[in-house]
Every structure is written in C-alpha cells, then in structure tokens.
C-alpha cells in the first residue's frame, strides 16, 4: 500500500464465493447443458500393456442414439500427440496420444470414445466396441523396468529410464566418510491419488460459422490448456476459449492437460455439436495422475554435536506409463532431490533422481510435489540421528537450521531461500504444544504401557515462482508471470480480471481484498473474474502455490496504475494538485482538508464523461492491465508437531494433538489461510495413515473404488491448532508467500516421526508410508511386541 490505510488485507473476510456455492448455484462443468449436446464415454484398456490389433465399432455405431465413435487412428488425423518436452538432456520426451495408438501402457488408458444422446446410451455403446488386444509382458515396477531384459514401454525412448538428474555440492563422499555418525535408511512413499470430489470433466463446443472452439473444463490452468490446444489442434489461439469457472478441487491433479480434453475437442469439432464428458470415480482412480511412488535411499552424516556434514540420496520414482504435459515425468523425482536438504545448512550434498516408466497411470503434480517425500526423508533422518546422539528432536533441528545471518541462502540444489522463520516457527510450535508438558504426558502414558509419541517436521518450500526458473524442472513452458485487469465502470464499481483460476482457494475474496485496498473501494464493489481465457489478460492458471503471489502482485500493480489516474482526475475535480490528493476509504480528499473530497463514483463517472470533465490531454477511461513477474519466487516455511497414540490392540493411529506454525508472509485473509492449512494437513494425514494406490503384478488397479482407496472422513481428522509467524517476503510485491500446498508437505513426516517416537521402546523406525495398521502389525510383530 502506497497510500490509504490497509483495511481489507489482513482481515478475516467471509468468502465472496460462498453464497452461490452454498445454494447450489455453482457453475461446474457438469452443470452446463447447451442445446444439441452429446454425452461422451470412453472405452478404457483392461490390459496393463498390450498391442491393439483391431477395433470394431460397428455394433456401437448401430445403436440408436450414437452419433460417433473415435479411435486413436481417427484422432491422430485431427490432433497431434502430446509431447511434454524438457530442456534437460536426461529427460526423454515421449508421445502421449489422446486415444491409445497401437499400444496401451496402463489399465484405464482411453482407447475409444463414443458420443451419444445420453451418457447411458454412450456407455451401452462402449460395451459394444470390440477391441482385439495382444497382451504384452507387464512392466510392473521400477526394479523390473530397469532390468535390461524388460520390455521397453516407449520405443522412441529406447529405455524405461525417462528421467535422470543429479544435484551436487562439495565432496559429500569425504564428508560422510569422516562423519562421527552416519544414519541411513531406505524410505518408501507409496503411490497416492488426489481424489478431487469433482471428477474430471469437460464440455467442448465448436462454432462452425466462426471456427471458434470453447472448452469448459475442470482445469486449474485454463491458459495452459488453451495454449497447447492451439498447437495440438492447429488452431489460432484467439479462436480457442477455455473456461473453468467453478472447479471441485484440484490439488495439482487438474493442472495437467488430459487426453480426454483433446478427444472431446476433436469430437465436437468433427460433429459440430457440443460434446460433454464427465468422468466417473472409477475413471478418476484409473486415469487421473497419481503422485509420489518413490523409493529413497538416503544417508546423513553428522558431527558428534549433531551438525550436518553431508547428505547423499538416491531417488527412484515410478512415473507410470506416460510423461504428463507440461510438467513431464521429471516433476516428482527431481522436485524430491531439489528439496531434500530442507531448511538446514547442508555443506555437502549429492541427490540423484531417476524416473522410470511402468504400466501404471502417469505420475503428475499433487499438492506438495516431491516435497512430502523429501520432508519425510530428511525429517526421518534427523530424528534417527537425534535418537542416536541422545539429542531432543527439536534441539537437533535448531542446531542445523539456516540462521538469520545466512539469508539469502543458496541451497545445495541451487534454490535461494529469502529471509524465513525456521527457528522462530519451531520455537513457537514447541510453545504451542507446551512441549515439556507434552513430553511429561508421554512419559506417564508410556509408564502405563501406552504407545504415545510426539513428532516434529520442519520444512521450507519455494512458492510464487517467477520466470527465472521453471515450475517443473527442465520444463520449457514459461509460467513466470500473471496479469490483472482492473476496470472501473462509470458507477464506480470494479471488475478485476485474472488469468489464474480458483478451485477452492477463495481467490475471488483474497484478490478482491487486495484490489479494494489499492483503489479505495469496499470489497462489495469489487467483482473478481477468473478462469476464462477470453475475459482475462494472458495467464496460465493456478498451481505451485503461485496465485496469491503472482495475481496478487499483478493486482497491486494494476491497482496502482488505476489509483494514479484517479488521483489526477480527483485533483482536477477538486481543483487541487494531484500530489496533494490522498486516498481515504471510499473517496479521495485533499490532504489535510477532509471536507474537500470526491467519491470514487464521481471520479469514475468523470473518467467516462468526456474531455470537459478531465484534465487537458488525459485519456478517458479508468482501467489498467499490468503484468507481474516475481522472477525467482519466495520461500514459505512451517513446523508441524503431532502427538499420536498407536492403539495396542487395533494398531490404529489416533492423533491426539496437531499443531502447525506456518509463515506465509503477509496474510491477506487468516480465515482462508487457516482453511488451506486444515485441508492440506488432512490430505497429509490421509497420505501418512490411510491412502494407497495398489496395483497387482499384472498392473490391475486393486484400489479402484472409494471403499478400497480410503480418503479420510471427519472421524480420522483431529482439530488442528494453527498459528502464524508473519515474515513479509522481501522479494514479492505485498510481501506475500504462497501457502496452498504446505499442509500436505509437513504432515506425513510429522506423523511418521510421531509414530516412530511412540514405538521407540520397541526400536521401530517408520520408513514406509502410509503406515497402515497392517504395516504396524508387521513392524510390531517383528519387534517382538
């Protein structure tokens, strides 16, 4: 804020989007049904790996109500295959056809598409399509995929090793060899899936008269989708409009381009009729991108006093059958080695990452991306080291944190951390938990034979990434900017348009708070428009904890431009020097003379009323579009602390306390910040204790319903205590830091450490997540309990 008092930013403002969502008036994809619309359904592969010999759709086409059937060959004539390119030499670029072309590479891959008068008829028709498959040997996991005798999934890559990357600093081998203590572990973070409550879906309309294509999609990134469709469909960009008004959760799962979006566009363009596809939950579990699925072998060398001397890690990720656009198959494993050193001073480091193709759904971005496994690993090693050295887990962290005098600190993987509050956050978490009392309570519980433990996890993440670095390592697509258009109408109300897209984060509220403060109007007078490429200036969308930083920064810039013009017009109307005019809430007044003022409405009306109401030479109108590029991005950090009890009879893990101290810089709306933390932690708890995607040896998905893939209900989630440290970012406009993902980054590690602490009397370490009752049964059995 240059002038005026901050009124909206920082306040717990109730959300602007709530009334429509609470009354059933949301505008999700499936709520739209244009005239003459057809319903689509996809035939999906029952095989994990097979050659497609023949597809016979004649019986499907003969069914009354069926308009068309498309196969991979049909699509190949109308759209290019997706190729997620990378600038990194050791990341292979492979094709991902919208419908399988010649071969299927995972169960659930789309093979054919039907458009019919109802979804019911479309599904009837899908059952009548005959596909002759020649099953091929299944590439079931990373070990077998790397066996030289393994079949290769993508001939063009000549190997299943799609990704290899290394980050190194210093002589880590010498440092670890000379360390007083080395702790090592093989960590396993199993496959996870995002489960947005709204399944993916899209609705394409092609206007044959104008040649314009409109795609409504449950997408986080309407701009990215528009850009790539231009290329794949060979259409000019200005004729493609992508709309994502209300989206029922994203969490990264809806940040990628999906085959069904392309196929639906092709079908609509071919038929000249609107076509809608709404995925069902089975399709979501089979064919939405999965997450994590990593094995990490890591070693941490320390001095006797607990300070780190070196860290070595080998990460291997099962990236599934395809490399996802635009993030590539590198996103998960390379992010993991990027963030492994955590908020610590790690003088020597070597992290190697490999991404290996197997016959599973593609791996893609999911809340935290690589950091939940990275934090699980480094925080697990810190606790192991603390136990060996007889140090308190909080103490060993405090001895290693990057200190105030170290900022800006360049991490061993090259990320620069701006001023953050690692130490302060941990100390505050300790106070919030009343650490001493909690330890006393644990001792009493232990004496009574109960398995109670306390776990801590501290992390730092990079958010609000600008143009200097790609959001996903090696990705050539530029994602470093966002823009805002702020437009006054003559009645003094504001429309603010953004290229980002909100799907639960409350951006219609937080961005309105920023705009309202910048131009001096109440929040009711600001309408935020987002998620529509025709309405907004150029942008990509919402992912990677960027939107509040980038769109918020753009809002500040656009707000400033508009405000400067308002001051000039106000000066003219008040017959005062614009330099003497100041913004007071709702009106502009001559400094020191509050009675000499004009309202925002008077200024706006003047702006549109022609030359005689404006200073000589001033262009009419009152709007501005500004772009913002934070260049590097900014750090966000937190400490999570969990107190858990493992039930000795059922081996269920009950969370007794859960404390988060987070630092997202200047908070725009604490109500929304808390909500983001709560939701993120709940997903992290699911990841730590319940959720696991399971394939059998033949690549069949065993967790294909919500009965088998267990999403936490209200009963499994505790009340969380969220506290804040507010360290305004020194490197972003407004001092904001991104925070949508953080809850999921800290929670798995905090819970794993708490469970390990609870079972410390049995010398049990938690090296595998989710730590389900079955895994605890095996661990406690082996330990003789």
């Amino acid at each position, binding site marked *: 804020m240059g002038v005026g008092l901050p009124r909206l930013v920082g306040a717990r403002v109730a959300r602007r989007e709530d009334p429509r969502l609470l009354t059933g008036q949301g505008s999700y994809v499936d709520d739209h049904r244009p005239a003459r619309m057809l319903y689509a359904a996809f035939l999906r592969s029952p095989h994990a790996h097979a050659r497609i010999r023949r597809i016979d759709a004649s019986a499907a086409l003969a069914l009354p109500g069926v308009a068309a059937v498309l196969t991979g060959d049909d699509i190949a004539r109308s759209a290019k295959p997706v190729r997620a390119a990378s600038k990194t030499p050791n990341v292979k670029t492979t094709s991902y056809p919208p419908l399988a072309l010649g071969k299927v590479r995972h169960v659930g891959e789309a093979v054919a598409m039907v458009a019919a008068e109802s979804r019911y008829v479309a599904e009837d028709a899908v059952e009548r399509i005959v596909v002759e498959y020649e099953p091929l040997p299944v590439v079931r996991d990373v070990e077998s995929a790397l066996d030289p005798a393994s079949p290769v999934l993508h001939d063009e890559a000549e190997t299943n090793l799609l990704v290899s990357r290394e980050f190194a600093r210093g002589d880590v081998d010498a440092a670890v060899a000379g360390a007083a203590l080395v702790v090592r572990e093989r960590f396993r973070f199993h496959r996870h899936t995002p489960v947005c409550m709204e399944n993916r879906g899209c609705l394409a309309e092609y206007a044959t008269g104008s040649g314009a294509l409109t795609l409504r999609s449950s997408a986080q990134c309407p701009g990215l989708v528009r850009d790539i469709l231009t290329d794949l469909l060979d259409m000019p960009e200005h004729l493609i409009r992508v709309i994502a008004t209300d989206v*029922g959760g994203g969490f990264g799962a809806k940040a990628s381009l999906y085959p069904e979006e392309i196929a639906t566009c092709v079908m609509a363009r071919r038929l000249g009729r609107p076509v809608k596809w709404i995925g069902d939950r089975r399709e979501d579990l089979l064919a939405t991108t999965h997450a994590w699925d990593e094995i990490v072998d890591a070693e941490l060398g320390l001095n006797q006093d607990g300070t780190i001397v070196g860290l070595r890690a080998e990460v291997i990720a099962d990236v599934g059958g395809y490399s996802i656009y635009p993030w590539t198959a590198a996103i998960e494993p390379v992010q993991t080695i990027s963030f492994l050193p955590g908020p610590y001073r790690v003088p020597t480091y070597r992290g190697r990452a490999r991404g290996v193709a197997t016959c599973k759904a593609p791996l893609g971005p999911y809340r935290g991306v690589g950091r939940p496994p990275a934090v699980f690993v480094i925080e697990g090693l810190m606790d192991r080291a603390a136990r060996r050295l007889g140090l308190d887990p909080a103490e060993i962290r405090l001895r290693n944190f990057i200190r105030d005098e170290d900022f800006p600190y360049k991490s061993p993987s090259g990320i620069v951390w701006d001023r953050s509050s690692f130490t302060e956050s941990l100390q505050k978490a300790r106070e919030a938990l009343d650490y001493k009392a909690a330890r006393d309570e644990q001792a009493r519980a232990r004496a009574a034979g109960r398995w109670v433990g306390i776990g801590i996890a501290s992390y730092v993440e990079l958010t609000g990434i600008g143009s200097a670095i790609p959001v996903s390592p090696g990705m050539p697509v530029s994602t470093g900017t966002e823009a805002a258009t702020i437009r006054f109408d003559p009645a003094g109300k504001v429309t603010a348009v953004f290229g980002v897209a909100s799907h639960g984060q409350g951006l219609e509220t937080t961005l309105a708070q920023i705009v309202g403060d910048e131009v001096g109007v109440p929040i009711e007078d600001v309408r935020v428009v987002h998620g529509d490429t025709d309405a907004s200036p150029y942008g990509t969308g919402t992912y990677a904890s960027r939107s509040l930083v980038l769109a918020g920064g753009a809002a500040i810039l656009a707000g400033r431009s508009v405000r400067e013009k308002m001051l000039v017009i106000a000066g003219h109307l008040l017959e005062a020097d614009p330099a003497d005019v100041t913004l007071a809430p709702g009106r502009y007044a001559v400094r020191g003379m509050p009675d000499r003022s004009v309202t925002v409405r008077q200024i706006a009306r003047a702006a549109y009323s022609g030359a005689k109401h404006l200073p000589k030479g001033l262009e009419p109108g009152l709007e501005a579009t500004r772009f913002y590029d934070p260049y590097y991005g900014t750090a966000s950090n937190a400490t999570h602390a969990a107190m858990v009890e493992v039930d000795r009879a059922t081996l269920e893990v009950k969370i007794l306390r859960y404390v988060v101290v987070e630092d997202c810089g200047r908070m725009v709306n604490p109500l929304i910040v808390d909500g983001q933390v709560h939701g993120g932690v709940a997903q992290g708890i699911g990841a730590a204790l319940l959720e696991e995607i399971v394939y059998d040896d033949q690549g069949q998905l065993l967790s294909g319903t919500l009965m088998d893939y267990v999403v936490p209900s*209200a009963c499994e989630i505790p009340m969380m205590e969220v506290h804040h440290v507010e360290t305004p970012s020194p490197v972003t406009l407004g001092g904001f830091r991104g925070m949508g993902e953080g809850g999921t980054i800290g929670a798995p590690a905090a819970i794993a450490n708490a469970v390990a602490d609870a079972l410390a009397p049995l010398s049990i370490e938690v090296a595998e997540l989710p730590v389900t009752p079955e895994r605890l049964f095996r661990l406690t059995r082996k330990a003789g309990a």
Partner: protein
Amino acid sequence: MADMMTVRLKVNGVEHEGRCEPRKLLVDFIREDLGLTGTHVGCEHGICGACTILFNGEAARSCIMLAVQAEGAELATVEGLMRDGKLHPLQEAFREHHGLQCGFCTPGMLMTALDFLRTNPTPSEREIREGISAVLCRCTGYQGIVNAVRAAAPVLAAGR
C-alpha cells in the same frame, strides 16, 4: 431402449412429473430432468455423499437410487434451503466458519448435517464428526464444517 416410465414426486415443495428410463439414477433425474444441478455426483457408488438429499425427510444418497424409486416421494435438495432470499442458518454458519472451499461436497454436506441436527440437536464434537462422516470433503480438513455444524445446532434447535 427400455420403456419410459412416469415419475411423479415433490421436490422442495413443488410437484414434478417426468418420464425416464427405469434405469435412470435419481441424481441424474434431479440434475438433468428437473434441472436442479445443486446436487452433485461424486462417486456413483454411495461412498462420497456429494449427492445426498433428503428423501421423505431423511438423508439419502441419490446416486444409488433409481428415479422410479422416488415415485410419490418428497425430496429436499440444497436449492430449497434459502428462504425469502436469505441463507438458511446452517448455510450462514458454513460461510462464517469457512465450512466450504471448492463447494462440491457442500450440498451433500448441508443436507447430511441438516438431517443429523434434526436427530441430534445438541451434539458433541465427536458426534458431529460421526454424523458428517457420511460425506467426504477433500478441501477443509472438516474443521470449518465441524465448527459450522456446532455453531448452527443451537440456532436450528431454537427455530424448531
């Protein structure tokens, strides 16, 4: 194609009559034939609860019922909660306590909570958690929802 059947039912106090195939799911009938798109489809196998409506006054999943089973029934959906242009006290509480984010589970959550508070007007936190565990929410971590239901309980009880 199977014979079409007539379904007569009352939704939010209004009589409706429609014709559909016997296999048509109740939720599809509500959304497509009646145009009430506030009720959402999340899993079509009765787990997530997004499609929950009140069926003759009790919470029920409209994705695992057929439309023809609703012949003669009285349904309530999220569209019927507002009165005279004002949010229902439960909706107000959800807004005040940030009990929704993406909004997709919200209609099912509201209808479930409404039925729950009818049967248990003064619930404990544990009882609220059990009461709403029939609906999955991926955004809120349930904290805002639990707080909203707890805050709405006395208001709803006083209004009875």
